[in-house]
């Protein structure tokens, strides 16, 4: 499993999709449910953060390039 803060959006959403698919499998054991759900929540938070939370460091870098 990737370190959460190093994951890209694509990696996080891909892992999330795979996990949801596992959970939708009729063979999914009820014993795994809690751990899966917890991980899904983490991944959803990572993805939403990537889309909506500002990366100030990146903004700074781009501002420097634009001014050059």
């Amino acid at each position, binding site marked *: 499993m990737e370190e959460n803060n190093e994951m890209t*959006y*694509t990696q996080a*959403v891909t892992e*999330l*999709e795979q996990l*949801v698919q596992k*959970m*939708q499998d*009729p063979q*999914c054991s*009820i014993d795994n*449910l809690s751990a*899966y*759900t917890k991980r*899904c*929540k983490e991944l*959803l938070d990572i*993805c*939403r953060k*990537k*889309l*909506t*939370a*500002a*990366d100030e460091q*990146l*903004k700074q*870098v*781009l*501002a420097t*390039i*634009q001014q050059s």
Partner: protein
Amino acid sequence: MNQPNLFNQPNGITLSEFNSRIERTLNGDTQLFNQWVIAETSDLRLNRSGHCYTELIEKDARGETVAKMGAAIWAGNYSKLYNKFLKATGQVLATGMKVLVNVSVSYHRLYGMKVVINDIDPSYTMGDMERQRQEILNRLKAEGIIDMNKQLPFPQVPQRIAIISAEGAAGYGDFMNQLLGNPYGLQFYTCLFNAVMQGAQTVPTVLAALDRINAHQELFDCVVIIRGGGATSELNSFDNYDLAANVAQFPLPVIVGIGHERDVTVLDYVAGKRVKTPTAAAEWLILQGTNALAHLNELQDAVVTAVRDTVSQAREHLAYFTSMIPATARRIIDTNRIRLDNNAKNIPVAANGLIANQRTRLNHAVERIGDVIAVAMQRERQRLQALEDKATLLSPDNTLKRGYALVRKGDKCVTAADQVHSGDQITVQFAVGTTDATVN
């Protein structure tokens, strides 16, 4: 120099009177009516009433526009000419076509001068602009690079945008307002690479901007080339082989929004994504983000549903098994009861069978006993018959019949002469009758 006389009538005429003179002059020249003219269409468009407006232009050998005239095809005539042109050329009448048109001048004192197109000769070939564009496209195709940028995958959510535009241009402002003001809280990171977006400086400045982006390509998800719309003749600079070849082979996907829908440049053919306007480019980027947010919501719902389904399925399983216990027990009891009943029913049948069987064996034995007795009786009868025959043969009667006589003295048979003495009384028995006698 004449001083204006403030108290008398001014020395001029009104503009409308002046314009009326122009109108009369133009209308009086028959050469300005029903004249066939060679020109190129530019910025051709239809308005809501179905009237078609275009700029007729003429260029010199170096490609500079040397003459320009607004033209209109009224709605009543347009559909006829449109179909005539389409039928003959296989193409829709559009911007950038070299045309041979029959025109009449039209002057209005308020709206100025234009020409009205009465007819079109579709046998006249496509315009230079379109032919040149086609040549560039053919070359890009032949070199196998025309679809290269289109084949680059866009990241799921392009957020880091390198923009090529003119700083301060309305198109760039529209794009930034739209993108950064998106109401969904989506984050975009933009970096402007300034370029001149019209005229002779377009190609070198856009190419320079692409080079600078290329040097920082790991920082970006895609490139956006934008400028506000304008007359098609001003878009000519984008119909350039070097620019198209560079965009086609650029390592990041390129979004082009440099004109309106009716203006299609070579750049539009090679870009990974083509939109009509800068605003549309921003809308497309925002759409990728909102799609991603919607997808995340779907996934979240899917997680909730999956948990609920799995739990309720487990509960159903449990309930099923619970409900199955009495039914299963009842079934086992019923099955055994039926077997018991069947066995009970079978007892008399089996017993009757056994009894009948034994009775038959008994009857057979009885029959055999009779036979054996009959045989034994027969045998005994024959033996008796044989004894009887023998007895008959040996009986004294038969001997007497043959002439012998039986002599008795008292109760005893006399079988020897010395058994009797003179004077003894004896009895002689014959076959028939007896005689007493006295021994001498």
